[in-house]
């Protein structure tokens, strides 16, 4: 069978909206309009078919019903192709394939955007959080290769992302062999629980103090390991210092020194005590703590800061 030419008189209908379709049409002569309801406005609109233009293509190729009605406006002649005939014709005409592809992709892009615009933001999703959660999902379900793969892709895509510290820690734990042990219960964990001290320290570095505070408080409640706990308490004091809460920071650091007099970060703790006393205007105490801190800070990045603060304060006393 070859494509056939069909003549239509004015006001006749080539196909109705809702008709199933197995034919594709091209306008050879005359005037044909496509009547449909505009999705955005709900108004009935009519598009005129240009001479030589194909219509009814999507419904026939996609095996769907027509979503418009084709109305003949003047005496017209239309060439009708079966899907098979249309495909044979396309095979010999790459330019036509590419042209149709362009038309279809423009339509698809437009409707895709309209749909995305209607979805609420939580459903449309936050791709950064989404990818991180996929890694967490596979880790929880012990599908470690996929978890590692998701975290690696996160690292490439979001090197400074909100979850970069957690991802980094997870990937480091792969090297340390702990990745496969921790987080392995099948119960999903609350995101806010059991965030490690390392991650909290990253939160502090990034200025995300509230998240750090929440993570550290939760960690200290659950931690049984003394070393981890003492580090968490140090980070808590640091966090309060950065939050410019000198009284609370002093209370935290003082309590920490009493309970852990041999704390591995004693020099830093004494420096931050001095720093916070200076903020409160108590220069004498600040100088006293700085003098105790200085010998312990040798080689530490805080050493120069301590020396500067000391000379500033002693000059002013």
């Amino acid at each position: 069978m070859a494509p056939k030419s069909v003549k239509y008189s004015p006001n006749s209908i080539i196909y109705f909206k809702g008709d199933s379709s197995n034919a594709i049409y091209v306008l050879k002569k005359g005037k044909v309009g496509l009547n449909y309801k505009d999705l955005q406005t709900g108004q009935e609109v009519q598009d005129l078919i240009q001479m030589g233009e194909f219509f009814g293509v999507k419904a026939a190729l996609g095996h769907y019903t027509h979503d418009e009605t084709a109305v003949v406006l003047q005496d017209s002649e239309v060439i009708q192709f079966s899907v098979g005939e249309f495909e044979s014709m396309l095979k010999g005409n790459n330019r036509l394939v590419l042209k149709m592809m362009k038309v279809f992709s423009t339509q698809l892009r437009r409707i895709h955007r309209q749909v995305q615009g209607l979805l609420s933001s939580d459903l449309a999703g936050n791709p950064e959080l989404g990818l991180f959660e996929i890694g967490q999902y596979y880790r929880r379900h012990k599908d470690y290769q996929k978890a590692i793969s998701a975290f690696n892709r996160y690292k490439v895509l979001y090197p400074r992302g909100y979850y970069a510290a957690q991802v980094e820690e997870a990937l480091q734990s792969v090297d340390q062999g702990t990745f496969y042990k921790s987080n392995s219960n099948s119960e999903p964990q609350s995101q806010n629980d059991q965030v490690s001290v390392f991650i909290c320290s990253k939160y502090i570095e990034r200025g995300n103090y509230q998240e750090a505070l929440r993570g550290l408080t939760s960690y200290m409640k659950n931690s049984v390991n003394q070393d981890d706990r003492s580090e968490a308490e140090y980070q808590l004091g640091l966090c309060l210092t950065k939050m410019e809460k000198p009284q609370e920071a002093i209370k935290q650091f003082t309590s920490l020194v009493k309970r852990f007099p041999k704390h591995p970060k004693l020099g830093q703790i004494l420096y931050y005590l001095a720093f916070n006393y200076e903020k409160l205007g108590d220069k004498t105490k600040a100088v006293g703590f700085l003098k105790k801190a200085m010998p312990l800070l040798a080689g530490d990045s805080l050493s120069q800061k301590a020396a500067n603060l000391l000379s500033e304060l002693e000059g002013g006393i």
Partner: protein
Amino acid sequence: MENLERFAKTFNPDEVIFFEHEPGDSFYLIQSGQVKIVRIMGDIEKILDILNPGEFFGEMAILEETARSASAITLDSCSVLEFNRANFSSLIQGNPQIGINLLKLFSRRIFDQKRRFMILTLDDLDGKVADVFVMLSELQPPDEESGIREFKASLDDIGHWAGIPVGQCKDVLDNMVSNQKIVINKDTIKVNNINELIRFVSSKRRSQENNERD
């Protein structure tokens, strides 16, 4: 197919080709093996589709660099052809059948998106959920005999299609269960009379259009 070997890539079984939420600039045509398309919903990995040789995936990347809407994971050893917008024209030049297959795929996608748009623009929650069932029935072969339809769908699926949070979707479905409109089974949802839902959705749409006109 001509000159396509330079686009070929192979993957091991259970290997991730791309993750949901990753930005995408490539699309794929399966040459051998099977690929599953999955999405994490809640705490479940939900299989949306299993694709066979000759089928495409990730094709939205031809249009724009959007985040992937699902993950693609191999089920067995797979060989795929990987394309992007830059080399797409040269692919079609040498292989018009691939272009024709993509036209068919795009036709279906346009229809799907238009249908989804219609669901999302209904104001009424009951109407949206009912229209999801109507849409699912349109995708099944017509069955004139009975109004009963059974769909392999979950609460998450219905909520996703209706564009509403799962909690709200559950309320609507619970209400439909108590009114004996549907029966929720372990893996399926049975609609007792699809024609009733079609009429319900039509009346919702009509009254919405009338209100908008007033």
